[in-house]
Each structure stands twice: as structure tokens, then as C-alpha cells.
């Protein structure tokens, strides 16, 4: 029987980054109706920008802030400039368009920085504390703390603030909300900003916890999408639970013989089961 405690702890931290990205995806989908496959790529660029700044002797804090700002700028650019041109296409085409944005970003990252094995170092990596008999670096604790804070903050924001109310109205019915005086584009833009911030933070944390690689970070969007699927792109608590379960299961399978090599299939398995369960009754579209 292998010792699962270290894997559990590291899984929680990875799961926290999935949760951050997934919450961004759900908030954005609710407000603007776009499933953002580029969430991972935006996070990857944020991580590379902060890595490059630190590498050239810049202070860490400047690096992180610059990375997150780049993520927000990209997200807002896509949301304000490109997404509206597809606003009346069907949801699949809007999602596929974000895939193309992800391809552009991925190509750009690999062109500039290449796929050399490297890691983003955070100053919180070197110190830590003991819990469950396992040493936990502060990065892991911080990742978990940020995910918890961000989720609670966003849930409160959606439930209490006026803008949150408008976003929920948009999620229910875009045309009716516009008629009632909701400034659709403004609420949309805020949703893209929130998703950009979450993508940046989760990208930087994941680049530290795993590795700084364009492809790996871009496709970290898949567990996040799987978590969002579990939350039906609507429920934040279910999304958070989904992200945590996926991240922890993936990590816990690492030391198990035979199944270990297949642990990266965990998100797919959860998403497929969730999809099948959700769609267990046949429905027909009336057009």
C-alpha cells in the first residue's frame, strides 16, 4: 500500500489551479455564452511573460502582475474585438473560434520560447510547513487559498452586486436583458476581464507546480472544461467540486501500479460520465 498523503496534498494544489480556470470558464459562459477553450493558452502566455521578466532580472512581483495584465488584455481583446463578430453564430462555432485563438497563442509561445524543459520558480517554493506528516510548500498553500478566496468572492459578487445581477440576467436571456437596459457589452467585458485574471493566476501557479510548457499549459484547459461540464457550465459549487475531485483523483492514481500511466485520462472519464448522466433522456431540438 503506497503512501497516498503526499500525492493527496500535491493533488489539492493542482486541483486548485483547475478550479480557478474552470470558475473563469463558467463565469464567462454564463455572461457571454462562449465556452472559452483558450483559457489555458491565455494562462500559458501569462506564465511565460512573468517567467521572461524574472529571467531578465525583473522583480518577481512585477513579473506576476505583468503576466496577469497580459492575460486580462488578451482576454478583453478577444472578447471585445473578435467574439462579437461571431455573436450570432451558434455556440459550437463560438467555442471553435476560441480554439483557433488558442492555436494562435500556442504557436506564438512555441515560436518565441520553444519547448525547452523549464519551470517557473516562485519565492514561496523554498519554505513550507508540515501537515498530515507531509511538508507543504507555501506555493501549494497559496494556490489553494487563492482558489478558495476567488471562488467565494466571485459567488458573492454574482449574488450581491448589481453587475453580478446583470451577468446573471444575461445568462438567462440576452435579448430580454438588453431590452431591460442591461448594458450587455459592459457586463460582457467584465466577464472577459474576470476570466482573464483567473486564467493568468491559474497559469502562473500551474507553471510553478508542474512545468512551464506551452502545450501542457494550453491543454490544462481540458481538466478545467471537464470540471465546468460537471457544473453544467452553470453551477459554481458543482464546478469547484468537479475540479477538486478531478485534480485529487489524478494525483492519487500516480503511485498505483498498472493504472498509473493512465491517470491523465481521469478528466476525460469524469467529463464523459457527467455528460452521459446529464443527457440520459433524449431530447429533440425544435427549429
Amino acid at each position, binding site marked *: 500500500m503506497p503512501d497516498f498523503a503526499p500525492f493527496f496534498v500535491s493533488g489539492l494544489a493542482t486541483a486548485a489551479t483547475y478550479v480557478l480556470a474552470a470558475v473563469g470558464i463558467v463565469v464567462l459562459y454564463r455572461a457571454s455564452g462562449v465556452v472559452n477553450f483558450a483559457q489555458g493558452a491565455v494562462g500559458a502566455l501569462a506564465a511565460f511573460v512573468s517567467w521572461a521578466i524574472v529571467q531578465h532580472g525583473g522583480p518577481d512581483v512585477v513579473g506576476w502582475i505583468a503576466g496577469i495584465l497580459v492575460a486580462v488584455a488578451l482576454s478583453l481583446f478577444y472578447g471585445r474585438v473578435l467574439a462579437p463578430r461571431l455573436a450570432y453564430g451558434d455556440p*459550437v462555432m463560438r467555442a471553435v473560434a476560441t480554439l483557433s485563438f488558442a492555436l494562435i497563442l500556442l504557436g506564438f509561445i512555441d515560436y518565441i520560447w520553444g519547448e525547452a524543459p523549464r519551470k517557473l520558480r516562485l519565492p514561496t517554493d523554498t519554505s513550507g510547513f508540515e501537515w498530515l506528516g507531509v511538508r507543504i510548500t507555501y506555493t501549494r498553500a497559496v494556490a489553494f487559498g487563492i482558489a478558495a478566496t476567488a471562488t467565494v468572492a466571485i459567488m458573492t459578487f454574482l449574488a450581491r452586486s448589481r453587475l453580478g445581477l446583470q451577468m446573471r440576467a444575461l445568462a438567462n436571456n440576452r435579448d430580454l436583458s438588453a431590452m431591460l437596459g442591461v448594458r450587455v457589452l459592459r457586463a460582457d467585458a467584465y466577464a472577459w476581464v474576470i476570466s482573464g485574471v483567473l486564467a493568468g493566476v491559474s497559469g502562473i501557479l500551474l507553471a510553478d507546480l508542474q512545468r512551464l510548457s506551452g502545450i501542457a499549459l494550453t491543454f490544462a484547459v481540458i481538466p478545467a472544461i471537464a470540471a465546468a461540464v460537471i457544473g453544467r457550465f452553470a453551477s459554481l459549487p458543482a464546478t469547484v467540486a468537479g475540479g477538486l475531485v478531478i485534480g485529487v483523483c489524478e494525483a492519487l492514481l500516480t503511485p498505483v501500479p498498472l493504472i498509473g*500511466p493512465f491517470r491523465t485520462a481521469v*478528466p476525460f472519464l469524469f467529463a*464523459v460520465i457527467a455528460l452521459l448522466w446529464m443527457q440520459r433522456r433524449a431530447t429533440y431540438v425544435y427549429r
Partner: protein
Amino acid sequence: MSEQTLAPAGALRVNPTWIVGVLVALAALYELPDLLQDYWLRTFNSVVALAICSLSASLLFAQLGMVSLAQYGLLGVGGWFALRISHGLGVPFEIALLAGGVAAAIVGLIVGLPALRMRGLYLAIITLMMAGAIQVLISAFGFPDGGAGILGKSDTTRQMMARPFVADSDSAYFRYSLVVLALCYALVQAHIRSRPGRAWAMIRRGEVCAIACGVDIVAYKVWAFTLAGFLAGIAGGLLAGGVGQLDGSAFPASQSIMVFALTIVGGAYSWFGPIAAGLLLRAFPALLNDFHVDGNIATMVFGAGLLHALITAPQGVAGQIAGAGASLRKLVGGGKAAA
């Protein structure tokens, strides 16, 4: 949907431009392989295989409006079984190819089952998840290369897949691949022009109408997925035969996305679209390589091309070629892409 009319049934009408097109194609088939260098010949062998794979994605997209992001994964499945059977039983290439096709068709059927209840976004997501799962399996198992055991992995020497005895050289294999490509197109056309094509047209106009007209939508949707899986499997076998072996690390989910993306860029509604997609997927990066341009530029260009195609040109490259004028239309053989 460009083709709102039902495809005409019955006998093929003989069109003079068709005859010219067929003659040009035959001449090209005879001359082209001898004109190409070794490197380009191998590249074009891959182009043909990828064109078949893209044909399978465009079949689902153009006929039923379904987005499948798993077709390159299914190509891997077909390649795996073709290699396994070729190495294990030593059967002729054609049988290995068909076995790969059938295996991928079965997997395609399994992918297609959830499609009965899903549409649009969730279908795209579930096929992406399937592509990811296939990637995990392939990178864990690797491709058979003549070893013993169920997996057929050998640790020492990597054997090459046996090619068809009529097409052992690269140039003969290229001609062979083109014939297989033509057969795949014929298979798809035979479907579109007969009962399944009419049923698919009905389903994409409205599922409720289709049911009211007595179309068994479950059977025809499953059939479309199975056929698409079969084509992807054939493509996998053809690719395995062309290269000799397949690399387990070459089947990431990103490639599956790329196949779909370039099917749209190439033009899913036209017969030329899948060929354009094959050329973009394999020949374009090779061309960039020739000029010592970074291959990541290709990824960026593909992304921008897809975005452009989605926003402004839903008919893709093929649609733009078809729209360029009657003279050009004659050149591509009376392309069906209605502008």
C-alpha cells in the same frame, strides 16, 4: 448549410468538365510521382492519408452539422489495428487496411452513441474528451512494431509495415494511395447520392421533421459516425503503410483539433476541401521547413485561418477557389461548392 436542396438520386449525369477533370487526374496520377523528390513523395503520401481523415470530419460536419474533434484519434486507432494485424498475421496490406478501418469504425460507433442524445457544444466536448482518452491509451501502449504479445511492441528492432506487393516503392505507393483516396470519395458520394444522403439532409433541416417523415434518425446518425470512423481508420492504415511505423507520441489531442480546424479552413462543403486540408496539414509545414521557417508559424497561420474562415468565409479555401470564377471552376472540375 449551403446545400439546402436534396442531392439528386439516380444515374450520374455525364458532364464534359468531369471527363476533362478525370483525364487530368489520370495524367497527374501517372506523371506526378516521377516528378517529385523522395522527401516530397513521402510528404504527399501523408497528405493523401490526412485528406481521407479530413474527409471523415467534413462528412460529419457538412452532412449532419456535427463537430467531431476525435477523427485524428480514430486515425490512430485504425493505424494501430492495421499495424497489429499486418505484423501479427502477415496478411496482405489490403486486409490490414480494411481491418484498421473496421476497428476504427467500431470505435467511431462507440464515440457516436452519445451523439444520439447530444448536439452542438456537448458533442464537440465529448469528442474532444474521447480524443484525449485515445491519446492517453496510445502513448501508454505505443504502436505495434513486430514484437510479441498482444501489444506487439518489440524492444530491439522496429519492423516496418509491409506495403502492398503492387506498390512497394514510394512512387508506386503514392499512386496506390491516390486510388484509395478516390475510392473513399466514391464511398462518400455513393452515400450522399442515395438514401442515407437524403436522410442526412432531412435530419439537418430539422430532426422533428425527419422523424415525422419516418426517417430513423438514430440509425442514420450512428451510420454517419461509423462511416466517418471507417474512413479515419483507412487513413490510419494508409499512413502506417506510407511511413512504415507510427510514433505513439504523435497523436496528441491538439492534432485532432488541427484536423477539424483545417477541414473548416479547407472548406467542409466542397469535394476539394479535404484535399486542401491534407495539403495544409502536411505539405504546408514541409514547405516552410524547406525555406527554414519555424513550424510554429504554421500553427499560428492555421489558427488565424480558422478564425478568418469562421468569421468571413464559411465555405473555406475551396469555397473561395470555387467563387473565383467560371474559368477557375472548370480547372477544379466543376466544384460543387455553391458560393
